[in-house]
């Protein structure tokens, strides 16, 4: 197991490191790093990447943490619907959101700006647009919209697991709700907040889609678009490898920081199942409490889905309704376009296989490392979370370098993309399984063993049923993460291993919005059908 993981993660990194220090003739050189350190065309993207990622992290925490608290701790109405919409944001690929926001927030033809100009009697090109999505803030905005569910889920899960007794004690002692939230709840969820911020930061740093879709038109590069550009023929592999290693280092450092914070706090307030939670009554504040949900979910789900649906059924998205309606885009995508069927089949085959393999691997590793059952469990945990530090596109380079020469030539096969997805989703899978496992205090297993059960028996009878939902969630997470993957696929695909995401990216480069909208809707429908099916199945098993 450890060997599989090591091969998955270390081989690409080894090749990245090796390539970054060698020239074309494989002689040692520092030229690549020298160029990175002095060339403004690399320093600027690096800076843009850092500040946009930090902004995404803050934005996510600022919105998602209060939202999670409201859902977990108050009698907010419509929670089920709200949670579903948050899940929908999570299931929406960020690049797809970026497509939708081009249609909504393009400064002159964007439909939101159209509405804004019409409302105030302004004229495009003359007035300042309400939203200019083609900017660095555009990346921050769109990335945050589709990254906040991570923070929301972390905080909400953590709140679900912390018994509300502590908060009730605070309330009984006379503290108002806000005081309890700040003094008691906030410190308890700080690890979740930190974890959420980090994941948001790292997601943003490693995403390719929103940057390529929103920033390139404004002549802004980020590290991911820069690295991608280095693969224009003839590729500059050494430079690309060197450009990616700083990102790896940053992430390793941040993960260490996170681990030490979490380690110091080291409390385990969760043991067995806690009693029912008392909810804070919002009363007339309900309306205010719903406002951030309305804002965020409108921007992440309602408006984008609306504009994609509109675009799919019209000839020109920015033209008025009269005479614009048409099924042309649907006919084109499903009857004429050569790529559709191949891309759909590839995408779902990859998603299902990566999810299944990933769940098995993550569960095993999670159990071994969290229960400290094997020597080197720390290294295992690090290896499982390390890929979050590798931008998809850089992982792709690493895989490309590892598997384009004997003994194992995988370039041009679905296997290399499968390996990319498996590696890339490992941290998410591991986090999922780990958080499920952490919620099961070892004392439950210990109790079972005191009564004479073997470790395996305890695992199957006690732990497995308790983490079953977590494992199913892990499968789902990896599946959804895989079918929307663009950053790594963009370098690893070949003509017959194309996925839906890459196909859509190709269509974007020629501004074919109608077919993009049709493919987006198809992808979303299939994703939601999967989620519904798994939820149904899950409910049945629990009943």
């Amino acid at each position, binding site marked *: 197991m450890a060997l599989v993981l090591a091969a998955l993660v270390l081989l690409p990194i080894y090749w990245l490191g090796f390539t970054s220090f060698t020239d074309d003739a494989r002689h040692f050189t520092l030229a690549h790093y020298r160029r990175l350190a002095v060339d403004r065309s690399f320093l600027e993207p690096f800076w843009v990447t850092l500040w946009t990622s930090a902004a995404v992290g803050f934005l996510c925490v600022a919105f998602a943490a209060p939202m999670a608290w409201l859902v977990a701790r108050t009698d907010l109405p419509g929670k089920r619907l709200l949670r579903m919409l948050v899940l929908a944001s999570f299931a929406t690929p960020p690049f797809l959101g970026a497509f939708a926001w081009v249609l909504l927030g393009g400064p002159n033809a964007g439909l939101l700006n159209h509405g804004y100009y019409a409302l105030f009697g302004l004229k*495009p090109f003359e007035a300042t647009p309400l939203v200019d999505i083609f900017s660095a803030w555009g990346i921050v905005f769109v990335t945050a919209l589709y990254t906040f569910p991570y923070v929301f889920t972390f905080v909400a899960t953590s709140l679900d697991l912390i018994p509300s007794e502590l908060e009730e004690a605070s309330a009984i002692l006379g503290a108002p709700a806000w005081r309890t939230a700040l003094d008691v709840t906030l410190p308890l969820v700080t690890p979740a907040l930190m974890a959420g911020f980090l994941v948001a930061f790292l997601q943003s740093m490693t995403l390719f889609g929103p940057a390529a879709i929103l920033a390139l038109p404004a*002549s802004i590069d980020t590290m991911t678009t820069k690295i991608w550009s280095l693969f224009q023929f003839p590729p500059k592999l050494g*430079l690309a490898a060197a450009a990616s290693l700083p990102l790896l280092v940053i992430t390793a450092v941040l993960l260490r920081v996170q681990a030490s914070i979490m380690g110091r706090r080291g409390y385990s307030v969760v043991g067995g199942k806690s009693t029912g939670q008392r909810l804070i009554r919002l009363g007339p504040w309900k309306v205010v409490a719903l406002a951030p949900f309305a804002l965020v979910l409108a921007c992440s789900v309602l408006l984008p889905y609306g504009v994609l649906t509109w675009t799919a059924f019209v000839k020109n998205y920015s033209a008025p309704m009269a005479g614009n309606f048409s099924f042309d885009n649907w006919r084109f995508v499903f009857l004429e376009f050569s*790529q559709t069927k191949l891309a759909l089949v590839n995408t779902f085959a990859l998603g299902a296989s990566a999810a299944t393999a990933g769940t098995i691997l993550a569960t095993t590793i999670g159990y071994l490392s969290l229960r400290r059952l094997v020597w080197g469990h720390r290294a295992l945990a690090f290896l499982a979370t390390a890929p979050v530090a590798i931008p998809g596109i850089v992982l792709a380079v690493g895989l490309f370098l590892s598997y384009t020469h004997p003994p194992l030539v995988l370039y041009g096969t679905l296997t290399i993309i499968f390996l990319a997805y498996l590696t890339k989703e490992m941290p998410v899978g591991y986090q999922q399984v780990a958080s499920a496992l952490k919620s099961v205090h070892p004392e439950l297993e210990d109790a079972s063993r005191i009564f004479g059960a073997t470790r395996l028996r305890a695992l199957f009878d006690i732990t497995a049923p308790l983490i079953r939902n977590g494992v199913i969630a892990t499968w789902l997470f990896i599946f959804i993460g895989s079918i929307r993957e663009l950053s790594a696929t963009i370098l690893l695909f070949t*003509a017959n291993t194309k996925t839906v995401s890459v196909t859509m990216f*190709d269509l974007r*480069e*020629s*501004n074919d919005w109608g077919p993009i909208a049709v493919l987006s809707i198809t992808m979303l429908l299939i994703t939601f059908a999967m989620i519904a099916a798994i939820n149904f199945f899950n409910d049945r098993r629990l009943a």
Partner: protein
Amino acid sequence: MKPMRRIMLAALAAAVAGALPAAAQDKALVAAAEKEGSVAWYTSVDVKVAEAVKEDFHRKYPKIDVEVERSGSERVYQRVNQEHQSGIKHADLVNTSDSTHFIEWKKEGMLAKYVPAGVDKVPAEYRDPEGYYATWRATLCVMGYNTNIVPPDQVPRGYKDLLEPKWKGKLTKAHPSYSGTSLTGTYAVAKLLGWDYFEKLAKQGVQQLQSTTATPKSIASGERAVMVDGNEYNMFIEIDKKSPVKIIYPVEGTPFVSSPVAVFKDAPHPNAARLFADFLFSTKVQQFLVDKGGLRSVVPGVKDPAGRTPLKDIKVIPDDPAGMLPQVEDIKKKYAAIFGGGK
């Protein structure tokens, strides 16, 4: 099948294969192609034009599937070379709007010698003398504008007019690291006006898109008012769709862009590739490209539809692949330094 074409194809087939009777050879090619069952066509032509050509071929030869792999010229070049270097044999024939690719591929020995039926009639400047490739389609790299946004008396006449302050934030342009047409256009304009023209242009807040098929769609949607470079054929398509756009042929000159077709030596479906190449140069397809695709054809006998400015009335800057070839990397690098999005 037109008799003329049948004779030419037969003659060609006979030249290749020797003594077989003509019709039998024609049939033999079709039979062999049908046995292969599919053909992978890498192209940079607008995806809807490509799929329409595919449909037409499929209707004629229902047993042969065409897989269209469309991207920008420079991206197609990247994919072809990356696959070639990794030993993947998937592409059967290729078409890009950067003629230097064909010089390179020929030099690398990647192309098959094949003169599709009818190509011997094409003027010599549009085909390789040794028969490795020929211009399948041509277009001009034009400017254009949205008629709802730009009043008639304000329409820019050429590249230099775009530097006026009033165009700030209103321009859109394709990228030479993606688009062969944009690359050809950039080469021509840089030669004409110098690189400081692009430096000044960048200060105008240009929306930097990738494909020259994208810029006409951008001005049609009203996202930008004026297009610095774009395909003439996509402009014709938009105009046929009644989009509010018009073409500008810049006073400084309009770059001409040839897009050759070639069959790969290692094509996994060699017969289907040759049959498809024949089909691509048939008068029917060429006339379709011109009528519905808005393209220019170099195949004799194909007529421009009414209402389009004939080539002879446009101040055209001929393309110059041999002159451009040594400068390609430099153009892309300089351009990316000014507009981003490159190495």
